[in-house]
């Protein structure tokens, strides 16, 4: 039946991009005088089987020479290293009426309206193998979206299996940081929950438009896609007649119950206000309760876009058990971040992103300038500069940025869109 309808449907549309990056570390105090290479190819497609049944997908192939990639494919993001091939999304959308959409397959469910720090992204994991090139990963799920008038509602269910975010690798690996402090080896293990009924996750969003205001309430029950790090039992061996203790660090994804609000409101034609606030609660003894809030203002003028935001973490309930590290979810405590972007639709475009933790612990600056060489062939020069002012952090202790107190990566990228 699907095949018959496809015969009369519109032809599928395909597009994508191929990019190659090479970057180095001018400061010998960080990674040393070496170059790293990264390749990525993305293919997207969409089409329709009928007027009510459509499909879309996004696939990605990557390769690098820093051992961040291994294996052809990874189910549930179970592998510590990213695979060469990934299906980012692959969804069938069924629209029986203009108000209702049912989607089945691997899809993105991200309700945040912010670019980087996203409290309202409660379900969609990321591949953070390279922390500066985070990629959202779709989750195998069933979603129902209903919208009528100014009101909309969405329910997303991820049955049986939890899909974690892939953690940073290499010198950003939290385990490496801890092991370096201890001067010894360690074992890191991912605590991936089993596939079973009570690992089903569910999230819902209900919202409305009132004039220019868009506001919604979000909620989620499941696990946090961002890991915290807890100590495992020491691995004990006998070496030369003595017991040798090797620390074990567990990447643990705590149970999570979260709820909050998102809102955006335009002021005239040039200004846009956005705010999100989400409360995170967990029944687990090693997880704090905390409130994440972020507010931002965006200004658009001709070819320029300027965004300034402020994020803060407010801990409300202390965990009763200690962890080795609270993970990326708790890394930023009082963070000012923003972006200036220029894109006139001509040959030159660029942006400058920056963030500063108001505790004085962390600064990141990411400049990039691109030039269109031919049609959709772009060459870019970019940098990532980090200054971590303390060897450890007062609120979150060790972080993966602790391993690189100073980072100054510079690189070039060639990208072709088709």
């Amino acid at each position, binding site marked *: 039946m699907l095949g018959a309808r496809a015969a009369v449907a519109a032809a599928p549309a395909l597009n994508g991009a191929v990019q190659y990056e090479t970057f180095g570390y001018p400061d010998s105090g960080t990674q040393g005088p070496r170059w790293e290479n990264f390749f990525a190819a993305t293919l997207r497609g969409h089409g329709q089987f009928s007027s009510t049944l459509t499909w879309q997908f996004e696939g990605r192939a990557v390769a690098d020479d820093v051992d961040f990639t291994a294996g052809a494919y990874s189910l549930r993001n179970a592998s510590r290293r990213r695979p060469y091939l990934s299906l980012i999304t692959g969804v069938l959308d069924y629209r029986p009426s203009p108000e209702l959409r049912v989607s089945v397959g691997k899809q993105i469910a991200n309700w945040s309206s912010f670019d980087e720090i996203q409290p309202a992204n409660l379900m969609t994991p990321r591949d953070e193998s390279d922390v500066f090139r985070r990629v959202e990963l779709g989750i195998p799920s069933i979603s129902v979206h209903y919208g009528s008038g100014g009101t909309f509602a969405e329910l997303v269910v991820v049955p049986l299996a939890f899909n974690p975010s892939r953690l940073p690798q290499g010198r950003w690996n939290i385990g490496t940081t*801890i*092991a370096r*402090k*201890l*001067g*010894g*080896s*360690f074992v890191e293990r991912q605590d991936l929950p089993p596939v079973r009924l009570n690992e089903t996750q569910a999230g819902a969003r209900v919202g409305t438009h009132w004039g220019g205001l868009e506001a919604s309430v979000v909620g989620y029950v499941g696990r946090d896609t961002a890991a915290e790090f807890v*100590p*495992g*039992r*020491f*691995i*004990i061996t*006998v*070496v*030369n*007649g*003595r*017991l*040798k*203790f*090797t*620390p*074990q660090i567990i990447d643990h994804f705590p149970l999570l119950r979260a709820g909050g609000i998102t809102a955006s409101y335009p002021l005239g034609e040039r200004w846009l206000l956005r705010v999100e606030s989400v409360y995170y609660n967990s029944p687990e003894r090693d997880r704090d309760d905390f409130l994440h809030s972020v507010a931002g203002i965006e200004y658009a003028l001709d070819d320029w876009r300027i965004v300034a935001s402020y994020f803060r973490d407010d801990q409300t309930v202390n965990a009763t058990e*200690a*962890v*080795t*590290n609270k993970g990326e979810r708790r890394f930023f405590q009082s963070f000012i971040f923003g972006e200036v972007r220029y894109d006139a639709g001509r040959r030159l475009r660029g942006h400058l992103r920056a963030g500063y933790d108001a505790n004085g612990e962390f600064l990141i600056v990411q400049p990039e300038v691109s030039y269109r060489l031919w049609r959709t062939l772009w060459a870019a020069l970019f940098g990532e500069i980090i200054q971590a002012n303390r*060897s*450890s*952090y007062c609120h979150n*202790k*060790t972080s993966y940025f602790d391993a690189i107190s100073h980072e100054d990566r510079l690189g070039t990228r060639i990208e072709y869109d088709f």
Partner: protein
Amino acid sequence: MFYTRPPIRSKCSPSIGYRSACTLLVLLAGTAALAFGRGALAATTSVDTLIQVLFGDLPASDGVDANNDGAITVADVVLAVPVLFEGVVSDLVPHAVNDQLVYRDTDPLGVVTTETTTVVSSDPGGAFVIDDEEVDNNHQIITHELQSYTDSGMKLLYDGYTDEVNNAFTTCSPPLRRMVMPLIAGQSFSTTIDCSVYSTLDGTYIGDSNETDVFTPIEIVDSIEVAAGTFTHVVHINGSRQVIGAALETHESYFASGVGPILDLMTIGGQTTRTELESGTIGGVPVVPR
């Protein structure tokens, strides 16, 4: 070394094994031996017989008149209790500031290292700290620990240690009983402890482990020969350490009164490491075998 690192600390040492912690206990036993050794040992074998005699099941027999007063009385029973050491902890294991003992460690492969223990602090409340450093023949540091103890007079408690090489500190609850006075042959004392390991750099929680340590005073040994010479009337204490998830670690430790541990034979999985006293200074006076 005899102050050897406690089990606790081992757990935190990510890449370095540690010798077991029986040393202090052993020392205590040794002291007792010097004070009461021969008499206690003599009586030990006659306890059952004495009781039998006193209660009339058996006729009087030779060798049970422990106090040599010509009569079998309750006093003979009391004396028959095999006390190896009756003094306080510091009698068996001195720990004044700057007391230092140097050991020769020989691992199962025959590799020799030098371990130096130095008391670096002590307070009136009984707490003291021992700096325990082990170096190889090239003077490269293999292990370096600051071990914390508390001497309550009749008990020696091990509280935890700081691993200077691996930047970790370990605390245990409850404190590990390393020695309980008086030392009585065959009377074991054990402690099950839960130890947590943290980074000294920023307090990062590294992990924890559970273990049970058992110490059993065994006997008074007439003489023991170690690198520093031959010591007489030495207290022998057996120790075992069972860390959950690890092979059993056993110790045969020997203590000389007024000196401390002079020999420790640690065995794990059939492999034995020998740690023997090479030299030392107690109270500013060089250690001399006696």
